[in-house]
Protein backbone atom coordinates (compact mmCIF):
# COMPACT_ATOMS: atom_id res chain seq x y z
CA UNK A 1 0.00 0.00 0.00
CA UNK A 2 2.58 2.49 -1.02
CA UNK A 3 1.62 5.96 -1.99
CA UNK A 4 3.12 5.92 -5.42
CA UNK A 5 2.92 2.34 -6.48
CA UNK A 6 1.13 -0.91 -6.01
CA UNK A 7 3.91 -2.94 -7.55
CA UNK A 8 4.86 -4.59 -4.28
CA UNK A 9 1.22 -5.41 -3.56
CA UNK A 10 0.88 -7.00 -6.99
CA UNK A 11 4.04 -8.96 -6.39
CA UNK A 12 2.92 -10.35 -3.06
CA UNK A 13 -0.52 -11.23 -4.43
CA UNK A 14 1.17 -13.20 -7.19
CA UNK A 15 2.76 -15.40 -4.53
CA UNK A 16 -0.58 -16.76 -3.37
CA UNK A 17 -1.51 -18.80 -6.46
CA UNK A 18 -5.15 -18.06 -5.73
CA UNK A 19 -7.46 -16.61 -8.31
CA UNK A 20 -9.26 -14.56 -5.73
CA UNK A 21 -6.97 -14.62 -2.71
CA UNK A 22 -8.29 -14.34 0.82
CA UNK A 23 -6.37 -11.43 2.26
CA UNK A 24 -6.59 -10.30 5.87
CA UNK A 25 -5.18 -7.01 7.06
CA UNK A 26 -3.72 -6.54 10.56
CA UNK A 27 -3.48 -2.81 11.24
CA UNK A 28 -2.40 -3.28 14.89
CA UNK A 29 0.84 -1.32 14.58
CA UNK A 30 -1.10 1.81 13.65
CA UNK A 31 -3.55 1.36 16.54
CA UNK A 32 -6.08 0.07 13.98
CA UNK A 33 -6.20 3.48 12.33
CA UNK A 34 -9.44 3.82 10.38
CA UNK A 35 -7.88 5.53 7.40
CA UNK A 36 -5.40 2.71 7.03
CA UNK A 37 -8.17 0.11 7.08
CA UNK A 38 -10.07 2.08 4.44
CA UNK A 39 -6.93 2.30 2.36
CA UNK A 40 -6.52 -1.46 2.56
CA UNK A 41 -10.05 -2.18 1.36
CA UNK A 42 -9.67 0.33 -1.49
CA UNK A 43 -6.62 -1.49 -2.65
CA UNK A 44 -7.64 -5.13 -2.13
CA UNK A 45 -11.42 -5.43 -1.98
CA UNK A 46 -11.97 -5.53 -5.75
CA UNK A 47 -9.60 -8.40 -6.49
CA UNK A 48 -9.53 -10.30 -3.20
CA UNK A 49 -11.72 -11.58 -0.40
CA UNK A 50 -10.55 -8.85 1.91
CA UNK A 51 -11.03 -8.65 5.66
CA UNK A 52 -9.29 -7.10 8.61
CA UNK A 53 -8.76 -7.91 12.26
CA UNK A 54 -8.98 -5.08 14.74
CA UNK A 55 -7.64 -5.67 18.25
CA UNK A 56 -8.93 -2.34 19.51
CA UNK A 57 -12.53 -2.54 18.36
CA UNK A 58 -13.29 -6.15 19.09
CA UNK A 59 -16.32 -5.11 21.10
CA UNK A 60 -17.75 -2.69 18.61
CA UNK A 61 -18.81 -4.65 15.59
CA UNK A 62 -16.82 -2.31 13.38
CA UNK A 63 -16.95 -4.60 10.36
CA UNK A 64 -13.80 -6.52 11.17
CA UNK A 65 -13.50 -10.08 12.30
CA UNK A 66 -14.74 -10.45 15.84
CA UNK A 67 -15.07 -14.01 16.91
CA UNK A 68 -12.57 -16.73 16.25
CA UNK A 69 -9.48 -14.84 15.15
CA UNK A 70 -7.38 -17.97 14.88
CA UNK A 71 -9.74 -19.84 12.55
CA UNK A 72 -10.17 -16.79 10.39
CA UNK A 73 -6.47 -16.02 10.06
CA UNK A 74 -5.54 -19.64 9.33
CA UNK A 75 -8.02 -19.69 6.43
CA UNK A 76 -6.26 -16.88 4.56
CA UNK A 77 -3.99 -16.97 1.53
CA UNK A 78 -2.21 -13.79 2.55
CA UNK A 79 -1.88 -11.93 5.85
CA UNK A 80 -0.90 -8.31 5.39
CA UNK A 81 0.52 -6.57 8.45
CA UNK A 82 0.40 -2.78 8.39
CA UNK A 83 3.14 -0.40 9.46
CA UNK A 84 3.40 1.58 12.66
CA UNK A 85 4.98 0.82 15.99
CA UNK A 86 6.44 -2.67 16.17
CA UNK A 87 6.76 -2.75 19.98
CA UNK A 88 3.11 -1.79 20.53
CA UNK A 89 2.01 -4.25 17.87
CA UNK A 90 3.92 -7.22 19.31
CA UNK A 91 2.64 -6.39 22.79
CA UNK A 92 -0.97 -6.35 21.63
CA UNK A 93 -0.53 -9.49 19.52
CA UNK A 94 0.85 -11.43 22.47
CA UNK A 95 -2.02 -10.28 24.66
CA UNK A 96 -4.50 -11.75 22.15
CA UNK A 97 -2.44 -14.85 21.31
CA UNK A 98 -1.87 -13.69 17.74
CA UNK A 99 1.88 -14.35 17.91
CA UNK A 100 1.24 -18.10 18.05
CA UNK A 101 -1.48 -17.90 15.41
CA UNK A 102 0.84 -16.12 12.99
CA UNK A 103 3.64 -18.63 13.51
CA UNK A 104 1.12 -21.36 12.80
CA UNK A 105 -0.05 -19.49 9.70
CA UNK A 106 3.51 -19.38 8.44
CA UNK A 107 4.01 -23.11 9.00
CA UNK A 108 0.79 -23.68 7.13
CA UNK A 109 2.14 -21.91 4.09
CA UNK A 110 0.12 -18.73 4.29
CA UNK A 111 1.99 -15.83 2.75
CA UNK A 112 2.89 -13.23 5.36
CA UNK A 113 3.88 -9.74 4.40
CA UNK A 114 3.97 -6.14 5.46
CA UNK A 115 5.87 -2.88 5.34
CA UNK A 116 8.04 -1.41 8.07
CA UNK A 117 6.79 -2.82 11.41
CA UNK A 118 5.03 -5.39 9.20
CA UNK A 119 8.46 -6.52 8.04
CA UNK A 120 10.41 -6.31 11.30
CA UNK A 121 7.94 -8.52 13.17
CA UNK A 122 8.77 -11.74 11.27
CA UNK A 123 12.44 -11.67 12.20
CA UNK A 124 14.22 -12.91 15.25
CA UNK A 125 15.51 -9.44 16.02
CA UNK A 126 14.66 -6.03 14.70
CA UNK A 127 16.15 -2.59 15.04
CA UNK A 128 13.54 -0.13 16.24
CA UNK A 129 13.99 3.54 16.94
CA UNK A 130 11.13 4.98 18.92
CA UNK A 131 11.23 7.28 21.89
CA UNK A 132 14.93 7.63 22.29
CA UNK A 133 17.84 5.41 21.47
CA UNK A 134 17.45 2.64 18.92
CA UNK A 135 17.12 -0.79 20.42
CA UNK A 136 16.80 -4.41 19.53
CA UNK A 137 13.28 -5.77 19.55
CA UNK A 138 12.52 -9.48 19.57
CA UNK A 139 10.13 -10.35 16.77
CA UNK A 140 8.17 -13.52 16.11
CA UNK A 141 11.34 -15.24 14.99
CA UNK A 142 10.07 -17.14 11.98
CA UNK A 143 13.04 -15.73 10.09
CA UNK A 144 16.31 -16.43 11.92
CA UNK A 145 17.89 -13.09 11.08
CA UNK A 146 17.77 -9.47 12.11
CA UNK A 147 16.05 -6.78 10.06
CA UNK A 148 16.40 -3.07 9.58
CA UNK A 149 13.96 -1.03 7.48
CA UNK A 150 13.88 2.56 6.19
CA UNK A 151 17.59 2.02 5.61
CA UNK A 152 17.92 5.11 3.47
CA UNK A 153 15.34 7.26 5.24
CA UNK A 154 17.46 8.35 8.16
CA UNK A 155 21.17 8.98 7.99
CA UNK A 156 21.87 7.30 11.33
CA UNK A 157 20.07 4.04 10.54
CA UNK A 158 22.93 2.38 8.70
CA UNK A 159 25.53 3.22 11.35
CA UNK A 160 23.18 2.08 14.12
CA UNK A 161 22.44 -1.23 12.45
CA UNK A 162 26.13 -1.88 11.88
CA UNK A 163 26.83 -1.05 15.51
CA UNK A 164 24.13 -3.43 16.74
CA UNK A 165 25.28 -6.27 14.49
CA UNK A 166 28.85 -5.59 15.60
CA UNK A 167 27.71 -5.78 19.21
CA UNK A 168 26.07 -9.17 18.80
CA UNK A 169 22.75 -8.70 17.05
CA UNK A 170 22.35 -11.63 14.72
CA UNK A 171 23.24 -11.07 11.06
CA UNK A 172 20.41 -9.93 8.88
CA UNK A 173 18.97 -7.82 6.15
CA UNK A 174 18.53 -4.11 5.63
CA UNK A 175 16.07 -2.72 3.12
CA UNK A 176 15.55 0.76 1.79
CA UNK A 177 12.11 2.24 1.34
CA UNK A 178 10.34 0.60 -1.58
CA UNK A 179 12.34 -2.63 -1.39
CA UNK A 180 10.91 -5.98 -0.32
CA UNK A 181 12.68 -9.14 0.74
CA UNK A 182 10.96 -12.33 -0.31
CA UNK A 183 11.74 -15.39 1.78
CA UNK A 184 10.70 -18.93 1.06
CA UNK A 185 10.83 -20.86 4.28
CA UNK A 186 13.82 -19.14 5.84
CA UNK A 187 15.77 -18.59 2.65
CA UNK A 188 15.91 -15.27 0.83
CA UNK A 189 14.57 -15.85 -2.69
CA UNK A 190 14.27 -12.41 -4.18
CA UNK A 191 14.74 -8.80 -3.36
CA UNK A 192 12.31 -6.69 -5.37
CA UNK A 193 11.71 -2.98 -5.57
CA UNK A 194 9.04 -0.55 -6.59
CA UNK A 195 11.75 1.99 -7.25
CA UNK A 196 14.36 1.75 -9.98
CA UNK A 197 17.17 2.57 -7.53
CA UNK A 198 16.02 0.69 -4.42
CA UNK A 199 18.73 -1.21 -2.54
CA UNK A 200 18.90 -3.95 0.06
CA UNK A 201 21.84 -5.40 1.93
CA UNK A 202 23.03 -8.39 3.83
CA UNK A 203 24.75 -7.20 7.02
CA UNK A 204 26.89 -9.64 8.98
CA UNK A 205 29.98 -10.05 11.07
CA UNK A 206 33.28 -10.60 9.30
CA UNK A 207 36.43 -10.94 11.32
CA UNK A 208 36.26 -8.24 13.93
CA UNK A 209 34.11 -5.96 11.81
CA UNK A 210 30.77 -5.79 10.06
CA UNK A 211 30.37 -6.35 6.35
CA UNK A 212 27.55 -5.00 4.27
CA UNK A 213 26.93 -6.77 0.98
CA UNK A 214 24.51 -5.33 -1.58
CA UNK A 215 21.86 -7.76 -2.77
CA UNK A 216 20.65 -8.08 -6.31
CA UNK A 217 17.42 -6.11 -6.36
CA UNK A 218 14.90 -6.50 -9.18
CA UNK A 219 12.92 -3.44 -10.15
CA UNK A 220 9.29 -4.45 -10.61
CA UNK A 221 8.25 -1.53 -12.79
CA UNK A 222 8.56 -1.09 -16.49
CA UNK A 223 11.88 0.18 -17.68
CA UNK A 224 11.76 2.35 -20.82
CA UNK A 225 13.48 -0.35 -22.85
CA UNK A 226 11.46 -3.43 -22.02
CA UNK A 227 8.38 -4.72 -20.33
CA UNK A 228 7.92 -5.86 -16.76
CA UNK A 229 10.90 -7.62 -15.37
CA UNK A 230 10.66 -10.99 -13.72
CA UNK A 231 12.29 -11.07 -10.34
CA UNK A 232 15.65 -12.77 -10.53
CA UNK A 233 16.74 -15.09 -7.78
CA UNK A 234 19.05 -13.40 -5.34
CA UNK A 235 21.20 -16.47 -5.14
CA UNK A 236 22.10 -16.05 -8.77
CA UNK A 237 23.83 -12.80 -8.01
CA UNK A 238 27.50 -13.20 -7.39
CA UNK A 239 27.69 -10.36 -4.92
CA UNK A 240 24.97 -11.71 -2.73
CA UNK A 241 27.58 -14.01 -1.17
CA UNK A 242 24.78 -16.55 -0.79
CA UNK A 243 24.62 -15.41 2.77
CA UNK A 244 21.19 -16.76 3.61
CA UNK A 245 22.49 -20.21 2.91
CA UNK A 246 25.43 -19.84 5.18
CA UNK A 247 23.47 -18.89 8.24
CA UNK A 248 21.25 -21.42 9.92
CA UNK A 249 18.55 -22.17 7.43
CA UNK A 250 17.34 -25.16 9.34
CA UNK A 251 14.43 -24.24 11.48
CA UNK A 252 13.81 -26.42 14.43
CA UNK A 253 10.13 -26.70 13.90
CA UNK A 254 7.75 -26.47 11.07
CA UNK A 255 10.06 -26.41 8.15
CA UNK A 256 9.46 -29.99 7.25
CA UNK A 257 5.76 -29.75 7.72
CA UNK A 258 5.52 -26.58 5.72
CA UNK A 259 3.04 -26.66 2.91
CA UNK A 260 4.00 -25.92 -0.66
CA UNK A 261 5.08 -22.37 -0.24
CA UNK A 262 5.51 -21.13 3.31
CA UNK A 263 6.65 -18.01 1.62
CA UNK A 264 7.25 -14.96 3.66
CA UNK A 265 7.48 -11.72 1.85
CA UNK A 266 8.78 -9.25 4.32
CA UNK A 267 8.26 -6.04 2.50
CA UNK A 268 10.32 -3.23 3.79
CA UNK A 269 8.61 -0.76 1.60
CA UNK A 270 8.44 2.11 3.84
CA UNK A 271 6.73 4.99 2.27
CA UNK A 272 5.55 5.20 5.85
CA UNK A 273 1.85 4.74 6.20
CA UNK A 274 0.16 6.26 3.24
CA UNK A 275 -2.77 8.49 4.03
CA UNK A 276 -1.55 8.72 7.59
CA UNK A 277 -2.28 12.05 9.24
CA UNK A 278 1.20 12.06 10.61
CA UNK A 279 4.30 10.01 10.09
CA UNK A 280 4.56 6.78 11.97
CA UNK A 281 7.60 4.76 12.67
CA UNK A 282 8.68 1.24 13.24
Amino acid at each position, binding site marked *: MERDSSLLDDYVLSLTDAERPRVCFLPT*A*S*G*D*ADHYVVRFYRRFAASCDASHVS*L*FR*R*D*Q*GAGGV*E*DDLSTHLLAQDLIYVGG*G*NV*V*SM*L*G*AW*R*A*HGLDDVLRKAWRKGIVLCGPSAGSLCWFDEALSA*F*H*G*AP*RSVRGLGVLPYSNCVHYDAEPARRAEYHRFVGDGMRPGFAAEDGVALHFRRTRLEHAVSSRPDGCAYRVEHAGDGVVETPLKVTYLGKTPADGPTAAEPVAGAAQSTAAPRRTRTRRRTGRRTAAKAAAVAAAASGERLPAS*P*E*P*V*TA
Partner: protein
Amino acid sequence: MSAGEPGAGARPDVPVAERMIFAMGGGGFTMEPANPLLDDFVLSLAAAKQPRVLFLPTASGDTTAQINAFQARFADRWCVHEHLSLFRLRDARRPLREIVLEQDIIYAGGGSMRNLLAIWRAHGLDSLLAQAWRAGTVLAGLSAGAMCWFDGGVTRSSGPPEPLAGLGLLDGSLTVHADGEPERLPVWLAGVRDGTLPGGWALDDGVGLLFAGLRLERVVSSRPGAGAQRVDQVAGELVRTRLTPELLGDGRQSALGGVDEAVQELRRLHRMHRGLGERD
Protein backbone atom coordinates in the same frame (compact mmCIF):
# COMPACT_ATOMS: atom_id res chain seq x y z
CA MET B 1 14.92 -0.63 28.29
CA SER B 2 15.85 1.71 31.07
CA ALA B 3 12.35 1.86 32.53
CA GLY B 4 12.28 1.44 36.25
CA GLU B 5 15.87 2.40 36.86
CA PRO B 6 16.51 5.58 38.76
CA GLY B 7 18.10 8.26 36.67
CA ALA B 8 18.05 11.84 35.56
CA GLY B 9 14.68 13.50 36.01
CA ALA B 10 13.51 11.06 38.67
CA ARG B 11 11.91 12.75 41.66
CA PRO B 12 12.04 11.36 45.17
CA ASP B 13 9.07 9.40 46.44
CA VAL B 14 6.39 11.23 48.40
CA PRO B 15 4.70 9.85 51.55
CA VAL B 16 2.07 7.22 50.72
CA ALA B 17 -0.84 9.47 51.72
CA GLU B 18 0.21 12.00 49.07
CA ARG B 19 0.02 9.55 46.19
CA MET B 20 -3.17 10.15 44.28
CA ILE B 21 -5.26 8.20 41.84
CA PHE B 22 -8.60 9.37 40.46
CA ALA B 23 -10.59 6.58 38.78
CA MET B 24 -13.73 7.37 36.78
CA GLY B 25 -16.45 4.92 35.79
CA GLY B 26 -16.97 6.99 32.65
CA GLY B 27 -17.02 10.70 31.90
CA GLY B 28 -14.47 13.41 31.27
CA PHE B 29 -13.63 14.97 27.93
CA THR B 30 -14.08 11.86 25.77
CA MET B 31 -17.55 11.06 27.08
CA GLU B 32 -18.87 14.38 28.36
CA PRO B 33 -17.68 17.05 25.94
CA ALA B 34 -20.23 19.50 27.35
CA ASN B 35 -19.47 18.78 31.00
CA PRO B 36 -16.00 19.71 32.27
CA LEU B 37 -16.62 19.02 35.96
CA LEU B 38 -14.59 15.83 36.26
CA ASP B 39 -11.69 17.16 34.21
CA ASP B 40 -11.57 20.34 36.26
CA PHE B 41 -11.59 18.20 39.37
CA VAL B 42 -8.60 16.26 37.97
CA LEU B 43 -6.72 19.51 37.38
CA SER B 44 -7.47 20.66 40.92
CA LEU B 45 -5.69 17.58 42.33
CA ALA B 46 -2.22 18.71 41.28
CA ALA B 47 -0.27 20.83 43.72
CA ALA B 48 1.26 22.84 40.87
CA LYS B 49 -0.48 26.10 39.90
CA GLN B 50 -0.05 25.31 36.24
CA PRO B 51 0.10 21.53 36.15
CA ARG B 52 1.69 19.52 33.38
CA VAL B 53 -0.94 17.09 32.09
CA LEU B 54 -0.07 14.09 29.95
CA PHE B 55 -2.81 12.19 28.16
CA LEU B 56 -2.29 8.50 27.33
CA PRO B 57 -4.76 7.47 24.60
CA THR B 58 -3.16 3.99 24.36
CA ALA B 59 -6.32 1.99 25.10
CA SER B 60 -8.02 3.43 22.03
CA GLY B 61 -5.06 2.86 19.73
CA ASP B 62 -4.28 6.59 19.95
CA THR B 63 -7.35 7.65 18.02
CA THR B 64 -7.43 11.14 16.62
CA ALA B 65 -10.89 11.60 18.15
CA GLN B 66 -9.59 11.11 21.70
CA ILE B 67 -6.53 13.26 21.14
CA ASN B 68 -8.62 16.06 19.65
CA ALA B 69 -11.11 15.89 22.53
CA PHE B 70 -8.24 16.11 25.01
CA GLN B 71 -6.80 19.14 23.29
CA ALA B 72 -10.19 20.81 23.01
CA ARG B 73 -10.78 20.36 26.73
CA PHE B 74 -7.40 21.42 28.07
CA ALA B 75 -6.26 23.98 25.48
CA ASP B 76 -7.74 26.97 27.30
CA ARG B 77 -7.29 25.69 30.82
CA TRP B 78 -4.46 26.69 33.09
CA CYS B 79 -2.11 23.80 32.42
CA VAL B 80 0.59 22.53 30.10
CA HIS B 81 -0.92 19.66 28.17
CA GLU B 82 0.43 17.06 25.79
CA HIS B 83 -0.39 13.53 24.75
CA LEU B 84 1.88 10.55 24.41
CA SER B 85 1.38 8.28 21.43
CA LEU B 86 2.79 4.78 21.41
CA PHE B 87 1.84 4.35 17.78
CA ARG B 88 2.83 7.55 16.04
CA LEU B 89 6.12 9.24 15.42
CA ARG B 90 5.14 12.65 16.73
CA ASP B 91 7.22 13.58 19.74
CA ALA B 92 8.82 10.16 19.64
CA ARG B 93 12.32 11.50 20.01
CA ARG B 94 12.40 11.89 23.77
CA PRO B 95 12.83 8.92 26.05
CA LEU B 96 9.57 7.78 27.61
CA ARG B 97 10.90 7.96 31.16
CA GLU B 98 11.79 11.61 30.66
CA ILE B 99 8.28 12.43 29.45
CA VAL B 100 6.45 10.38 32.08
CA LEU B 101 8.47 11.41 35.12
CA GLU B 102 8.13 15.16 34.57
CA GLN B 103 4.31 15.26 34.73
CA ASP B 104 1.99 16.50 37.48
CA ILE B 105 -1.01 14.60 36.10
CA ILE B 106 -1.19 11.54 33.85
CA TYR B 107 -4.63 10.90 32.39
CA ALA B 108 -5.38 7.52 30.77
CA GLY B 109 -8.19 7.26 28.24
CA GLY B 110 -10.71 4.49 27.69
CA GLY B 111 -10.71 1.62 25.22
CA SER B 112 -9.27 -1.86 25.38
CA MET B 113 -7.90 -2.65 28.84
CA ARG B 114 -6.12 -5.74 27.55
CA ASN B 115 -4.32 -3.81 24.83
CA LEU B 116 -3.59 -0.92 27.17
CA LEU B 117 -1.77 -3.10 29.68
CA ALA B 118 0.02 -5.21 27.07
CA ILE B 119 1.30 -2.17 25.20
CA TRP B 120 2.34 -0.31 28.34
CA ARG B 121 4.25 -3.38 29.47
CA ALA B 122 5.90 -3.79 26.06
CA HIS B 123 7.26 -0.24 26.38
CA GLY B 124 8.09 -0.51 30.08
CA LEU B 125 5.48 2.13 30.89
CA ASP B 126 3.92 0.05 33.69
CA SER B 127 6.93 0.50 35.92
CA LEU B 128 7.40 4.14 34.86
CA LEU B 129 3.80 4.95 35.81
CA ALA B 130 4.20 3.25 39.18
CA GLN B 131 7.36 5.27 39.71
CA ALA B 132 5.57 8.51 38.76
CA TRP B 133 2.75 7.69 41.19
CA ARG B 134 5.18 7.08 44.03
CA ALA B 135 6.82 10.40 43.20
CA GLY B 136 3.52 12.26 43.55
CA THR B 137 2.19 12.44 39.99
CA VAL B 138 -1.62 12.26 40.03
CA LEU B 139 -2.82 9.27 38.01
CA ALA B 140 -6.29 9.67 36.53
CA GLY B 141 -8.39 7.91 33.98
CA LEU B 142 -11.74 6.56 32.92
CA SER B 143 -12.99 3.13 31.99
CA ALA B 144 -9.98 0.99 30.93
CA GLY B 145 -7.84 3.93 32.05
CA ALA B 146 -9.40 3.67 35.52
CA MET B 147 -9.56 -0.11 36.01
CA CYS B 148 -5.89 -0.44 35.04
CA TRP B 149 -4.70 1.00 38.38
CA PHE B 150 -6.50 -1.67 40.44
CA ASP B 151 -5.84 -5.35 41.09
CA GLY B 152 -8.42 -6.13 38.45
CA GLY B 153 -11.36 -5.04 36.37
CA VAL B 154 -13.85 -6.23 33.79
CA THR B 155 -12.86 -5.76 30.18
CA ARG B 156 -14.68 -6.16 26.90
CA SER B 157 -11.39 -6.13 24.99
CA SER B 158 -12.19 -9.45 23.35
CA GLY B 159 -15.94 -8.91 22.99
CA PRO B 160 -17.88 -10.38 25.92
CA PRO B 161 -17.05 -8.93 29.36
CA GLU B 162 -14.46 -10.87 31.36
CA PRO B 163 -12.26 -10.27 34.42
CA LEU B 164 -8.71 -9.05 33.82
CA ALA B 165 -5.85 -8.28 36.20
CA GLY B 166 -4.62 -4.69 36.34
CA LEU B 167 -1.39 -3.06 37.48
CA GLY B 168 -2.31 -3.49 41.12
CA LEU B 169 -1.31 -0.06 42.42
CA LEU B 170 -4.65 0.01 44.26
CA ASP B 171 -6.15 -2.86 46.24
CA GLY B 172 -9.42 -4.30 45.07
CA SER B 173 -11.19 -4.39 41.73
CA LEU B 174 -13.17 -1.85 39.75
CA THR B 175 -15.95 -2.14 37.22
CA VAL B 176 -17.08 0.81 35.13
CA HIS B 177 -20.11 2.05 33.16
CA ALA B 178 -22.34 0.26 35.68
CA ASP B 179 -25.33 2.16 34.29
CA GLY B 180 -24.26 2.68 30.67
CA GLU B 181 -23.11 -0.89 29.95
CA PRO B 182 -25.13 -3.02 32.36
CA GLU B 183 -23.79 -6.30 30.97
CA ARG B 184 -20.49 -5.76 32.79
CA LEU B 185 -21.91 -5.75 36.29
CA PRO B 186 -23.07 -9.39 36.54
CA VAL B 187 -19.69 -10.60 35.26
CA TRP B 188 -17.94 -8.50 37.90
CA LEU B 189 -20.27 -9.64 40.68
CA ALA B 190 -19.74 -13.27 39.69
CA GLY B 191 -15.97 -12.68 39.74
CA VAL B 192 -16.10 -11.16 43.21
CA ARG B 193 -18.35 -13.95 44.44
CA ASP B 194 -16.13 -16.77 43.21
CA GLY B 195 -12.90 -15.05 44.16
CA THR B 196 -11.60 -14.47 40.61
CA LEU B 197 -11.65 -10.77 41.50
CA PRO B 198 -11.15 -9.16 44.89
CA GLY B 199 -13.96 -7.03 46.28
CA GLY B 200 -14.12 -3.49 45.01
CA TRP B 201 -16.23 -0.79 43.45
CA ALA B 202 -18.81 -0.47 40.70
CA LEU B 203 -19.15 3.01 39.22
CA ASP B 204 -21.77 4.59 37.04
CA ASP B 205 -20.75 6.93 34.25
CA GLY B 206 -19.84 10.30 35.70
CA VAL B 207 -18.63 8.98 39.07
CA GLY B 208 -15.01 9.12 40.19
CA LEU B 209 -13.13 7.69 43.16
CA LEU B 210 -10.25 9.66 44.62
CA PHE B 211 -7.63 7.62 46.44
CA ALA B 212 -4.99 9.08 48.73
CA GLY B 213 -2.44 6.34 48.93
CA LEU B 214 -4.50 3.16 49.15
CA ARG B 215 -7.35 4.83 51.02
CA LEU B 216 -10.59 5.96 49.34
CA GLU B 217 -10.81 9.65 50.10
CA ARG B 218 -13.75 11.01 48.10
CA VAL B 219 -16.50 9.84 45.78
CA VAL B 220 -17.51 12.59 43.35
CA SER B 221 -19.89 12.86 40.41
CA SER B 222 -20.45 15.10 37.43
CA ARG B 223 -24.21 14.42 37.30
CA PRO B 224 -27.14 13.96 39.63
CA GLY B 225 -28.39 10.44 39.95
CA ALA B 226 -25.10 8.72 39.16
CA GLY B 227 -24.11 6.20 41.81
CA ALA B 228 -21.46 3.88 43.09
CA GLN B 229 -21.32 0.78 45.25
CA ARG B 230 -18.76 -1.15 47.22
CA VAL B 231 -19.08 -4.91 46.98
CA ASP B 232 -17.25 -7.56 48.99
CA GLN B 233 -17.54 -11.27 49.31
CA VAL B 234 -18.04 -12.43 52.87
CA ALA B 235 -18.34 -16.17 53.48
CA GLY B 236 -19.47 -16.76 49.91
CA GLU B 237 -22.09 -14.04 49.99
CA LEU B 238 -21.91 -10.63 48.37
CA VAL B 239 -22.16 -7.67 50.70
CA ARG B 240 -23.15 -4.53 48.83
CA THR B 241 -22.83 -1.02 50.19
CA ARG B 242 -24.24 1.94 48.32
CA LEU B 243 -22.02 5.03 48.18
CA THR B 244 -23.49 8.48 47.62
CA PRO B 245 -21.22 10.63 45.48
CA GLU B 246 -20.81 14.32 46.20
CA LEU B 247 -22.03 16.27 43.22
CA LEU B 248 -19.43 18.55 41.65
CA GLY B 249 -20.31 22.01 40.36
CA ASP B 250 -23.66 23.64 40.99
CA GLY B 251 -25.68 20.48 40.52
CA ARG B 252 -27.37 21.62 37.35
CA GLN B 253 -25.80 19.07 35.02
CA SER B 254 -28.40 17.06 33.21
CA ALA B 255 -28.57 13.39 34.06
CA LEU B 256 -29.12 12.46 30.43
CA GLY B 257 -27.30 15.18 28.58
CA GLY B 258 -24.03 14.22 30.23
CA VAL B 259 -23.11 11.38 27.93
CA ASP B 260 -21.97 12.20 24.44
CA GLU B 261 -24.50 11.33 21.75
CA ALA B 262 -22.01 9.17 19.87
CA VAL B 263 -21.41 7.12 23.02
CA GLN B 264 -25.14 6.65 23.53
CA GLU B 265 -25.53 5.58 19.91
CA LEU B 266 -22.70 3.08 20.25
CA ARG B 267 -24.28 1.58 23.33
CA ARG B 268 -27.60 1.20 21.52
CA LEU B 269 -25.69 -0.70 18.84
CA HIS B 270 -24.05 -2.93 21.44
CA ARG B 271 -27.41 -3.83 22.87
CA MET B 272 -28.83 -4.59 19.46
CA HIS B 273 -25.81 -6.79 18.69
CA ARG B 274 -26.40 -8.68 21.87
CA GLY B 275 -30.09 -9.01 21.26
CA LEU B 276 -30.94 -6.90 24.25
CA GLY B 277 -33.10 -4.61 22.21
CA GLU B 278 -33.57 -0.88 22.30
CA ARG B 279 -34.04 0.28 25.82
CA ASP B 280 -33.64 4.01 25.79
